[in-house]
């Protein structure tokens, strides 16, 4: 099937097998490697992207379902994403970095829909993404700093 998606502001048009997952389409077909795969059951959130503004696990979506959609990944470089990245750096919110794309996107989506979240709301907002390294506190502090 032929699909068209707009990723980080750029339109791509490709033929895909109907069974291909969006995460594999982004990684293998478009070469967007910042979208990561940490599980095969939809639990880790490493593959989180924004699909029409909503955070989704791209391993739970077929590429064909994203036809016509606007996708944002951690490579997106607007002012909010930049602020988040700086805060992640300053607050030591990443260790191995494997969850970081997912964390940035979950945080980005949260701040877009709720520019002044409480700590509880931040915890809730990033709870779809697992981090095995940081214990989460510095990620939460980074999101607060980026508000």
């Amino acid at each position, binding site marked *: 099937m032929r699909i068209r998606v707009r990723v980080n502001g750029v339109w791509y048009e490709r033929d895909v097998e109907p069974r291909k997952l969006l995460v594999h389409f982004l990684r293998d077909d478009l070469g967007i490697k*910042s979208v990561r795969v940490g599980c095969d*059951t939809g639990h880790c959130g490493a593959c989180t992207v924004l699909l029409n503004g909503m955070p989704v696990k791209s391993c739970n979506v077929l590429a064909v379902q994203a036809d016509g959609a606007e996708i944002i990944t951690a*490579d997106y470089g607007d002012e909010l994403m930049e602020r988040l990245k700086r805060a992640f750096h300053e607050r030591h919110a990443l260790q*191995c970095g494997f969850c970081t794309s997912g964390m940035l996107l979950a945080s980005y989506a949260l701040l877009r829909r709720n520019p002044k979240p409480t700590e509880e709301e931040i915890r809730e907002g990033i709870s779809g993404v697992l981090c*095995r390294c940081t214990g989460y506190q510095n990620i939460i502090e980074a999101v607060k700093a980026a508000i």
Partner: protein
Amino acid sequence: MKHVGRPIPRLEDYHLLYGGARYLDDIELPGQLYAGFVRSPYPHARVKRVDASEALSMPGVVAVFTPQSGRPFDFAPGGKVRYQGEAVAMVVAADRYLLYDALEKVYVDYEPLPAVVDPIKAMEPGAPVIDESLGTNIAKREKYASGDAERALSSSDRVVEEELVIERTVPAPMEPHGVLAAYDGRTLLVYDSTQKPHIVRREIAKSLDVPLTAVRVVQPDVGGGFGSKIQVYPEEIRVATAAMALRRPVKWVATRSEDFKMTTYGRGLILRYKAGFTRDGVLKAIKGEVIADAGAYDWFGFELASTAVTMLPAAYKVRDLDVDAVSVLTNKPPLGPYRGAGRPEATFFIERIMDLIADETGLDPVEVRRRNLVEAAPYENPFGMSYDSGEYVAGLQRGIEATGYYDLIRNAESERARGRTLGVGMSFYIEITTYGHEVAIVRAERDGSFTVAVGIAPHGQGDATGIAQLVADELQIPIDKVRVVWGDTDLVPDGLGTDGSRSLTAGGSAAVLAARRLLDELKKAAEAMVGGPVEYSNGTFRSGDKAVSIAEVVEAAYRGKVKAQLEAMEVYRAKATYPYGVGVVVVELDPETGLVKPLLYRSYDDVGVVVNPLLAAGQIHGGALQGISQVLYEDVVYDQEGNLATPNFAFYHIPKATEAPRYEPHFAEAPHRSEHPTGTKGVGEAPTIAAAAAAIKAVEDAIRRATGKKVRLRRSPVRPEEIYRLLRE
């Protein structure tokens, strides 16, 4: 300006945040093939026949390797599979999706055998024997004895006997295992998600029977390891072998469910013991055995049991000990190191014993520890471990003050009046870090900057930043003039990689000494340039009114105007060192459901010099959550036939942000330096060690507060259903 001691944000971050990150699966080589493994559904079975003909006829399939492929693939050694998920064949295909199709079409004839998953049952006569050549499931047993435990027990006021169980855990770094290998007819290039690139290189060369020079291992960015990427797995060897056989790049990346089948598991130790103590709370003797649930192959089980035994006495005075270390084969994936590797278990066991003594004597848990602690190091424990430096009694006191332990207890009492059930637990730990040699090369670059190549292999810990701080201070230059590289066996010297909380201490000390030596060399060159003895400070050599900058000396040497060594290499032998401290956990219990939530982790750690407090605190946060999570959330479950009932994140619970506590680490104000040039002792595992022991006590404390009854928890994890039952008993 000094860098050591300052909370400098990580230099590694830029590359991870701004599109530079390359984890194993992000690397693509032209013409690369995908490998996958056919894995046994049975926990124990004879492999009669593997039929790959249908798979081989499928589109995209390049090759199938089976037990008939022989060594070094080495599928089903001895004609058997010994755990559910053990690989029996390997398919190589041109595409990920076609690979998964083909894996379904490899047919294996199994003759199922009875399995044993409980190590205690595995030791009983009549249990299915996993390794027939041993004739028993007891892989190894060794006695560790000191003093006269029997006599000390009989002269104790009280003797208790019980069993403490730490179930297995899954290390579960967020990036699963994976490897990509390519062979050019002469050299194997292996990208590997590993903690130990040089060890992988050695193992591959040995298994494939090629010279070391024919193997280059590159560690890309690694998405966590926690000990599970120390082992060189058969999969790594097989992928390299396939790449060599096919002369095409071959990549294998485990799915998470596959990772749960093949990774080494952590913890998995049992202490069966008798302990004797006096009426006034002094521990006199321990007699018993530490049993490792080693899994199907004893890769590391015995190591873990023996570490747990030798660190069991901790910093307590008890010297009458008689404890066996035993590793027992079971039909499970092999046991391996997991953050702390034997020390969390030792601490868990001995701190459970201290809590028991407190309960039995009615003494305060802190007071029991105070009465048993050795005053200070140097101290040689009964098994010959030489604790290098530290004040244990004073450290306990400072830890209790810094963590506000008694305030937390008072707060828990007053919250009770408001209808909340909190529990507070503390632990005192001492642990051993640092072993082996480590290597560093410092090279002066033409622009006056310095490259530090290290044999450690950090993957999230931030050691590159820490080492840059150390080297910048040693050379008295700004940190942005130091670049630290690692992880490529072609470019960095042969080190042992990253594990055991040793990287900054061993690797950093090697780097400091290499920098010192290089500076001496440059000083000689500077003296030749100015024609007299020079003093060095802050990047400049001075002699009277003459001065030459370090960059000018290097530049002159690169242009051949002055003779100088521009590179220095140091091999550093690193002795063990012993961090210690106090961990406190506060939990909240929901008496309706038995669910427990961690609220707070506070710690006081004497880990020697803290090179970078920002990064050290980060280690405390993440390490504490792993320790707490082991007790509250993470549960590896097998059914009676030996099927893994928790095969991935859908069933095995890794805590989310909503389930994590606050962390408030404190580091000793006047830390006891290690004798290493860095003065550091290591911080990566300390919090995991302290937190698990404190967490289980916190749960007990919460149950006591809810029911008014003393309870004794003997198993980690503590399941909510057990708490629920205790609440209603």
